[in-house]
């Protein structure tokens, strides 16, 4: 097959949007992980619940503009995250990682099957007018929805950098992620910050779901794969390094797009997880991680 620039650019764009999409999903998880030190195995399921929320809002009798719906999904998902934090995470926050992992796996089972009982196993599509509109600048076809995802992802990451480095709350979060005990000693209410972080993570997840699900569909077990991909990105990015996790997500998107396009579609997930497992073997601290024992 001769090398065709158009196809290459298409795969590149596809990889970029896929990466942007993964990193939006990962961002919510890596925030809670680095600040609270909790690995949330129910993160993908929160995304799924947000996706169903979008589905319900889009199918309401009153037709709301998409922007309003996105805002509503963000708010509602932040609310779900707060509820989850209060009920299940708050009581075990000081316990071992094992308790964290198993509790959140339990949460994931509950959410997945509640969705199964309510919505059945059939995938639900949530098309918006934007996801079907295709523009083709310079002969490259891209749907407006994908373009929006790219732009929003870039904005969100820029926003997070500013937030973490230049606001008081962001600085507090960074301090807690570096040394929780010292923060408590100097009078920072770490539990309150944990709740806020969870809400922020939920809001970002809601935003991700509201933007991404129109491209695909929502089904009850979609969360598992998202969780594990986000976790893989976090581990590759060097446990708890927010930027590292974002780079790793982009990398995974690129690998999947190029491998799926040029070599074999059936094996694209195998390869992206294979890279993850390989990274673990070669550099257990992650690609972008500092040499710390975690």
């Amino acid at each position, binding site marked *: 097959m001769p090398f065709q620039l158009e196809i290459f650019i298409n795969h590149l764009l596809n990889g970029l949007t896929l990466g942007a999409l993964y990193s939006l999903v990962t961002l919510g998880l890596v925030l809670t992980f680095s600040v609270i030190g909790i690995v949330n195995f129910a993160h993908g399921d929160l995304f799924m619940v947000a996706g169903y929320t979008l589905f319900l809002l889009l199918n309401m009798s009153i037709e709301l503009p998409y922007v309003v719906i996105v805002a509503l999904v963000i708010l509602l998902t932040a609310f779900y995250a707060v509820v989850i934090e209060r009920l*299940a995470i708050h009581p*075990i926050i000081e316990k071992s990682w*094992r308790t964290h992992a*198993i509790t959140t796996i339990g949460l994931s089972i*509950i959410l997945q*099957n509640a969705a199964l009982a309510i919505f059945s196993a059939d995938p639900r599509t949530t098309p918006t007018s934007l996801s079907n509109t295709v523009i083709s600048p310079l002969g490259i076809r891209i749907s407006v929805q994908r373009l929006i995802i790219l732009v929003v992802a870039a904005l969100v990451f820029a926003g997070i950098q500013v937030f973490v480095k230049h606001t008081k709350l962001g600085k507090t979060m960074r301090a807690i992620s570096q040394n929780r005990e010292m923060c408590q000693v100097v009078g920072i209410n770490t539990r309150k910050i944990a709740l806020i972080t969870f809400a922020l993570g939920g809001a970002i997840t809601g935003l991700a779901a509201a933007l991404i699900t129109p491209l695909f569909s929502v089904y009850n077990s979609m969360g598992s794969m998202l969780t594990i991909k986000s*976790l893989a990105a976090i581990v590759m990015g060097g446990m708890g390094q927010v930027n590292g996790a974002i780079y790793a997500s982009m990398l995974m998107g690129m690998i999947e797009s190029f491998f799926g396009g040029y070599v074999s579609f059936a094996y694209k997930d195998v390869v992206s997880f294979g890279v993850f*497992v390989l990274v*673990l073997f070669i550099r257990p601290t992650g690609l972008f991680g500092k040499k710390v024992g975690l």
Partner: protein
Amino acid sequence: MNISKQSLRPFILPIVLLVIMALLPLFNQSGFTLNVLINVVRWLIFALAFDLVAGHIGSVSLGQPIFYGIGAYLTAYLAGKLGLGWLGCMLVSAFFMALLALLAGLAFFRIRHVTFAIGTLGAAIVTQLVANSAEKLTGGALCTTGVPRPQLLLPFMESAIKISKPIQFYYLFLPFLILTLVVYLAVTKSRIGRAFTAVREDEVRASAVGIYPLRYKLVAFALSGALIGALGSWQAQYVTVICPSDMAQDITTSLLIMVFVGGAGRLSGVIIGGVIFSILPPFLQAVGSKYFQPAYQQILYGLILVGVMLYMPDGLDGLASRILRRFRGIRKEGV
């Protein structure tokens, strides 16, 4: 030899369990009972092997179904293509899965805690995806079918019996559970078991007193892999079909529920959890599949798992022993 009452205690529950399980089919041989019993045996072996790693050395491996699946696929090849006998298949599967566990362990034990859990989960997903996609090797989503049933040939018999009835399977399977229990007890109640505990509680301190953590982790991982590999081999010959979904994540979830709701790292806990959660699903289904959809059952499981984690971190076993202690009027703290 001085055998005190105290040292016999860990053997009471498994022996009672085995006696009940061995005798039950004499009273009730319905297909349902046997099905439940075979289910109990399978899950108990699985849970015990899982607990060797998760409960005793504290490395929660979410990839144990890999050994099960590969053991099963290996058996399909060995028995179907090479005509190896059932015991041979189980032994070869056990051997290769132990070897695989050693190699995987060398790599995966470089990472710890939650990274280990995530890494092993990643490996499990890769394996399942490969099994799904490599249609020439595994039959893909259409499964590998037609694994031969075991044939039993004892020295005094003229010709081999083809094992095909559930009751035959059950009694051929039970010794495997006994073996697993013996291995579990022999390992955990010995010096090795105490080293496991030391490694689980504090690796640095363990190595300070001369216990090399990696060695003990590998021992536990290889043992677990061998047992699960043999189990997969057995299962392949029992149901004669192997699918990629046989190593799906729900298996890991069930194992987590059994072991952690029962009580991780304690034989009585694993037995309680394993028995309850392998009996519960068929009963719930039999009682009212109309009223009790699988989804509700899973929700209930999730609630139990979260509830146990929040309110009784040492599981049902911890609760039981607390009640027993109060019953006996002994108030021992921190045992």
